[in-house]
């Protein structure tokens, strides 16, 4: 039963990643087309643009949400792939705890930086 809920969360996280990452991709990479549509993004990767975005709560929220859903979706997917190859219960437990630790560390660091920049 637990695995059913984890799998359902995987599907929901996948949809949420698709939405949040699409916003990020369009904003960062479609600046020419957005410019033609009247939405002026001045060099999205420049220091001033990045800092301006970092100080807006909506962008910080989007990045943290993207990171949370993305890490869950990607690391749970990776665990499933490894589980197909690693059959022993001990190996599976090691894989689960390694992935969980990696995910928590990445989430903590990736959340800390936007919050620090939001306050700067």
């Amino acid at each position, binding site marked *: 039963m637990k695995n059913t809920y984890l799998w359902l969360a995987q599907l929901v996280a996948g949809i949420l990643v698709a939405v949040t990452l699409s916003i990020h991709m369009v904003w960062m*990479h479609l600046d020419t087309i957005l410019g033609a549509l009247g939405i002026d993004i001045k060099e999205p990767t420049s220091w001033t643009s990045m800092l301006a975005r970092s100080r807006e709560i909506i962008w910080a929220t989007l990045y943290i949400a993207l990171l949370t859903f993305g890490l869950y979706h990607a690391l749970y997917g990776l665990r499933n792939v490894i589980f*197909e*190859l690693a059959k022993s219960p001990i190996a599976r437990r090691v894989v689960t705890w390694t992935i969980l630790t990696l995910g928590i560390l990445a989430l903590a660091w990736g959340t800390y930086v936007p919050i620090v920049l939001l306050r700067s």
Partner: protein
Amino acid sequence: MKQIQPRRKNSLGLIGWVWGGNYKIERYLYTLHRATGLGLLLFCLIHLSVTTFFRLQQSSWETAMAILHNPWFKLGEYLVVLAFAYHSLNGLRLIIQELGFGMGKPTPPVYPYRDSLRKNRRWSMALVGTAAIIALVFLYDFMSGG
């Protein structure tokens, strides 16, 4: 209770990723889904490191961005966009079909047998078409310096 054992171990391991046997295009779409997923995970971890460690100082950020504007890195970024477009659209197709939508009505099993995925391939075709359109839109923007 005694369980019936399969005659052959039903696990090909990594070989099963490459060779889909009697399965058709959907099997290879799934293999590509996995490959793009693992690629995106690797990129995600690198991207997270670059955009957090170098974000704390202006000089290090500008140095990192100057390196990333190299044409080879731009090509790599475009491949990431393609992988994301494909992975998300194929994932959406898999979710829709896993939940039982778009599979068509059940029919009697008349030889030659056709599974419901192959009878209703419109979702796969829609996926490929939409991914191609997204790829072209992003290609235009990348080519024009985006």
